[in-house]
């Protein structure tokens, strides 16, 4: 055999190998004489795209859709304080607890309970802030929130929210996805799936984080779970480029960018005609959205163009990464038609292990960082005529104990409180919520619920209700059954609806 023959033989073998590699399982099924495989596959793929009451249009997944009912709210700004702020220093006024300060916790509160860190018999810890009644409604608010107390008549406070999770990550997942485990779509994903978005140049679901860390549950709290991936939250940064690599690199002009995206999409379209996988269409629309976002996002995410008055109001500092900037951004995004803006602010886990984590020091500083911007947000939405149609939700994954934390049975260097899921406070405003109301009541030390219990599912049901969904009918079929955000529970809190 000559060298040439050997070479040709090798070429042929290589070509055969390439053909075999390309001959995937899907080709095999498609080409199989029975044709049955292809039929089954078609069904399988078809199954990906059938929501029970809301058909997923793969060519334009974010197209705006009408809600099944007339909802008051068109968009949501969800402010999540990751780490669990202490309700006892913010919204839950417990004068009786002050009298018990420093006393041993009675065994009746400890029997059968499981704490994240408290061991043995902890001491009770009185409220580390003074309270007053505010507004016409006379709602108790602590001195830590001097600004918010001026607009408390716009706010409905839920005093008896409860969760069965006492660690951050699962509790955050439960609050946002309806299960403490991974894999379900987040609230924002459900909402964008159900309503789409009116501004085709911006994502429908934007996530902004502050406080130096992402929430403990990670990016799954804004994941799309089994919903098509186009509905997952798009995390933007408030410092530097809002989205990484949003600028074209040097030497790449806008036309070349366009040409390359067109080319990629053409290949994707061919791949779609061949495999009919709806995720390919998601990918195509994502490329197109990304291209449009290169123009639209830097504009909308640039808070430096806001007037001085607004910066004063929010306490924003352009160029920095902080909660106030994110809150202002949230307003700008909602104003431009973004459906769901999810904020996470990290650093509320006041165990008392350091001054920054003390309920009488660090918590005060955290409150100062959110009090002004949140109040400004409510006022600013109101003066633009947007508060009626924007639901603002403030909350966390759980609350904190009326006992002082004694990690491993030792006295902590600072005053702190342990995780407490039994009862904590949240609030909602705007979007058809009845301002100046409180719902739910806890016992005189804020340990257990007396009335008006609100489960995480009830919060979700109420948010969906305000957007025009019946949470029991808003489903998506996955793995052979219909799933809901509220799983098998959830009751709309009618008492706080205007």
């Amino acid at each position: 055999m000559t060298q040439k023959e050997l070479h040709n033989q090798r070429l042929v073998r290589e070509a055969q190998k390439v053909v075999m590699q390309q001959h995937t399982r899907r080709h095999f099924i498609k080409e199989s004489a029975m044709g049955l495989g292809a039929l089954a596959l078609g069904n399988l793929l078809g199954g990906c795209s059938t929501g029970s009451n809301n058909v997923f249009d793969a060519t334009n997944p974010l197209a705006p859709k009408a809600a099944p009912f007339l909802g008051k709210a068109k968009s949501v700004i969800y402010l999540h304080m990751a780490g669990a702020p202490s309700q006892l220093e913010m919204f839950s006024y417990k004068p009786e607890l002050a009298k018990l300060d420093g006393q041993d916790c009675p065994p009746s509160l400890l029997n059968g309970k499981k704490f994240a860190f408290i061991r043995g018999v902890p001491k009770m810890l009185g409220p580390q802030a003074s309270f007053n009644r505010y507004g016409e409604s006379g709602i108790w608010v602590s001195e830590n929130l001097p600004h918010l107390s001026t607009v408390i008549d716009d706010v409905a406070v839920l005093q008896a929210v409860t969760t069965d999770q006492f660690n951050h990550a699962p509790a955050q997942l439960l609050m946002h996805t309806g299960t403490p485990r991974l894999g379900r779509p987040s609230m924002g994903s459900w909402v964008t799936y159900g309503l789409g978005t009116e501004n085709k140049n911006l994502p429908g679901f934007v996530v902004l984080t502050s406080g130096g860390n992402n929430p403990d549950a990670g990016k799954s709290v804004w994941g799309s779970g089994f919903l098509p991936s186009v509905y997952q939250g798009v995390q933007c940064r408030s410092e530097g480029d809002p989205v990484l690599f949003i600028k074209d690199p040097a030497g790449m002009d806008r036309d070349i960018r366009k040409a390359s995206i067109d080319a990629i999409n053409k290949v994707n379209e061919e791949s779609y005609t061949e495999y009919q996988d709806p995720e390919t269409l998601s990918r195509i629309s994502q490329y197109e959205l990304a291209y449009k976002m290169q123009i639209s996002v830097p504009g909308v995410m640039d808070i430096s163009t806001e007037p001085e008055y607004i910066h004063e109001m929010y306490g924003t500092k352009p160029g920095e990464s902080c909660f106030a900037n994110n809150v202002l951004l949230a307003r700008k995004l909602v104003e431009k038609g973004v459906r769901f803006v999810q904020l996470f602010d990290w650093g509320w886990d006041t165990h008392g292990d350091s001054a920054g984590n003390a309920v009488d020091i660090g918590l005060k500083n955290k409150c100062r960082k959110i009090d002004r911007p949140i109040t400004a947000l409510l006022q600013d939405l109101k003066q633009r005529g947007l508060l009626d149609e924007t639901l603002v939700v403030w909350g966390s994954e759980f609350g904190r104990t009326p006992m002082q934390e004694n990690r491993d049975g030792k006295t902590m260097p600072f005053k702190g409180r342990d995780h407490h899921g039994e009862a904590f406070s949240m609030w909602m405003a705007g979007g058809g919520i009845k301002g100046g109301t409180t719902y739910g009541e806890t016992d005189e030390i804020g340990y257990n619920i007396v009335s008006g219990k609100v489960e995480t599912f009830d919060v979700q049901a109420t948010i969906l209700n305000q957007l025009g969904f019946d949470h029991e009918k808003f489903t998506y079929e996955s793995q052979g059954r219909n799933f809901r955000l509220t799983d098998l529970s959830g009751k709309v809190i009618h008492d706080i609806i205007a």
Partner: protein
Amino acid sequence: MISAGIGRLHPVFVHLPIGILLFAALLFFASKKQRFANMSLAVAPALAIGSFFSILSCITGYLLSISDAYNEDIIFKHQWLGIATAITSVVCYFVYQKKQGLFGIFITLLTTLIMVTGHYGGSLTHGADYLTASFNKSTSDTKKVIANIDEAVVYTDIIEPILATKCYSCHGESKQKGKLRLDLPNYILQGGEEGKVLTPYQPGSSEIINRLLLPTSNEEHMPPKEKPQLTKDEVDLLHWWIESGANFTAAVKNTKQTAAIKGLLASFSNGAGGDGDGDGANETASILPTKNASPIAADLLAQLNKEGIVVVPVVSGSNYVRANLIGVENVSAQTFQLLSKISDQLLQLTASFTAVKDEHLLALSNCKQLKQLELNGTTITNKGLASLAALENLESLSITQTKVTADGIGNVSALKKLKKVYLYGTSFTNAAVAGLKQKMPGLLIDTGGYKLPVLATDTTEAKAPEVKTN
């Protein structure tokens, strides 16, 4: 007490003989075929077991019938047919033992008896119209559309349909649980074995309301948790009826109404609202006009979309729409011409942050349905504002950060139905706002410019107290 308890076992015992006796019949007929001939061996034991349990069913059934109130006519038939069934099954057993040729006739008779008895039994538990209810949809709808709600009679048009769908099956003609009937006024007033169920004018001390409001987990809660529950709206209406004296003939217009009840009543006349499922978004008492509009033609919709105008129904199934111009690249006269073509359907329009000009707005003047208009952050002036005067249904107007001035603000008063106007960032004057307020006292005027005081705590940090070191 004990006999009633045993009686309640009737449903447990009754289903077994039905199955087993029918199975015996099936075995018998099958065994006539050569292939299944050996099945005949099982017929006799099946008949024996069936007979035993059908006698047990008769006993428990009798105990149940004396412990609770049922329709006498149906109970009579069910009782005697049941006894006949039990006797026939025993007879069948002996006839079969003697291998008489008549067995075919007896077993056929038995099968027929089981079916007829079963039917009457079903009528007792589920109501006489249970079998036909699904063909007769109108009876299962609590809520009918009432053309003129003011003239309607509260009891017959609103309350009775609720009772009929949610209560009659146990407290009606065929069954009277707790000796209570709710299907006729005199029975309602009479109450049940535990006394009166309602006290006119006092819903709080009316047992019927208390039972409805108990948590579903409570045994006393009505309807029992496995039965269809009343919606919140339905409970509210019952409450309202009793509070107003539980009158059986009064018309709606003569009955005092709160705002919430008005809303509920309004939903009767337009068929909307109160989704009937209890826990849904039922706050639709609503921006929707009572009459639905004609749908937008598909080719017009395509044109609107091509222009970049987002058009979405305000609520699923409605032909009324909201439009958003945020996606229109060059807002022009043509954009607004297109919008004027959907004037019959357009309820809400958002043109904020677009290049909309004064002259464009004239094209909106035929949008008589328009209820909400947002023009924030545009360059429109007093001229544009004046051209909106024809929007007779406009309820909410946002013109923040526009070039509208104090002189133009008076024009707003031409909008008779206006409830809210947002003026933040315009060059309004306090005098102009006061003038408008005087002309339209009910109007909410938000001029914005809210300021938060600067507090020392806004910029300082709380610090840990100095720790003394020895």
